[in-house]
């Protein structure tokens, strides 16, 4: 089985935010929730870089470790998913997550925090694949249809890569070798405890 990962080649990202928009549209993500975002480092200074970031589907995921109701599970593809039926909206997964991935609708007690929502690697949730219940809670399940996440599929510069970790690491390695530079596989050390030697 493939081990699914994301990789953002920051030397290609042009901060067009198309991945953010595509994600919102594909999953009909509610207002105020950002499963993916683009962060620009050293904005306006020489050497600025933009990184598109969402849930990295960590190895030994910190969110899953701290969840008081244990509502996370990792699929055979290494995708970290959760059950909104079990989530109590305590917000702890956000404190543990290195990437700011978990999102909370402003509903529930005092409008502070509803059930957590995050990137599913376009793989839905615990409900039956591609069912209406799954779509309503988690958005579409592209993986079940044999497709990869939409954000990476439509990235105009092919900066954002999604898929089998070994394959995308190889693509990145070749790019770096060919062009002679690379600012690094952002987040890989933190999420997967490995880097891509380049």
């Amino acid at each position, binding site marked *: 089985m493939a081990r699914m990962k994301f990789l953002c080649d920051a030397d290609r990202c042009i901060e067009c935010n198309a991945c953010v928009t595509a994600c919102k549209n594909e999953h009909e993500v509610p207002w105020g929730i950002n499963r993916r975002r683009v962060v620009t480092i050293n904005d306006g200074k020489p050497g600025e870089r933009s990184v598109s970031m969402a849930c990295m589907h960590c190895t030994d995921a910190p969110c899953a470790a701290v969840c008081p109701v244990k509502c996370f599970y990792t699929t055979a593809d290494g995708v970290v998913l959760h059950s909104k039926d079990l989530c109590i909206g305590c917000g702890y997964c956000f*404190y543990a997550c290195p990437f700011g991935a978990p999102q909370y609708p402003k509903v529930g007690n005092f409008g502070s925090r509803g059930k957590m929502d995050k990137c599913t690697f376009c793989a839905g949730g615990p409900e039956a694949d591609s069912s209406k219940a799954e779509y309503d809670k988690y958005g579409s399940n592209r993986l079940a249809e044999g497709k990869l996440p939409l954000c990476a599929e439509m990235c105009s510069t092919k900066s954002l890569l999604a898929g089998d970790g070994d394959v995308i690491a190889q693509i990145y390695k070749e790019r770096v070798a060919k062009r002679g530079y690379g600012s690094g596989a952002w987040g890989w050390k933190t999420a997967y405890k490995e880097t891509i030697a380049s």
Partner: protein
Amino acid sequence: MTMLLALGRSAIAALALAVLASIAVPASAQQPTQVNPTASSVKEDQLFRQMTRIDGRISIPDAKEGVLIQPAGQSWRQFHEVTLPWIGAIAILGMLALLVIFYLTRGMVRIERGRSGRTIMRFNAFERFVHWLTATCFIVLAISGLNITFGRQILMPILGPNGFASWSQYAKYAHNYLSFPFTLGVVLILLMWIAWALPNRTDVEWLKQGGGLVGNKHPPAARFNAGQKIMFWLVVLGGAAAAISGYLLMFPFYATDVEGMQTAQMVHGIVAVIFVAVMLAHIYIGTIGMEGAFESMGTGDVDLNWAKQHHPIWVEQEMAQSRGASQGAPAE
């Protein structure tokens, strides 16, 4: 006419291009042919050598999402998974063990001269109401809070994932809503009793002699002895710390960023488990630890001999007051 104008325009444009080219050519000739755009680019490794987390600019309104990577989440995970459960288990089980040992060796502190049959009012209805309001809220807050810390290990195997999740949802509602009456109770306790809880010289003597529970002597005390004064301040300060850190957690990211939220959770967790341990001792003394003590918060009236034994100065003050009152009243 228009033809002429257009011609003129293109002539100017051509001239401008030629001028530009003449400036640009020597300039590019001076630069190295191969530009390395990565020489100045930010690199993850390099940033992590300089700082503990990576922040940037975002184009969405959610300011907390400007943090790109915060490895500190891993140390918070360590605190949540290992440190807090250990502190909690040691504090709470340790206190229970101590109390059991204490009860077995010391037993219930008796009213030495037996009950006199006469009573004296110690806490009025309002004081007792505030006490029990705070106490009930505290017990619910403690159970629903400890459910977040230990429920996954203890209750989840019994209730199953679905049962445990719905119980935890209700527990969270209870924890959130009862925080308000609890905070009110702590504020009222502060206002109501602070006058009797300020430390003075009798406390030093009381503490030296080990009080009425540890020692066997009965050092004099006014309405509150030093032990009770310490309990008062633990409740007021612990309640304040729990409330401030708790409201930061309840209204996330209004006042602080992710680092602040992690700190708030750490403070809240540690204060809470120690608070629970301290309250176990308080409950012990108020019930099986001391004969006649529970009545003060039960009916509000305590036996006079109990009062004389534990709070002689207070009894004298009360007696003097009532004598003064009866003397002041007109004869007949």
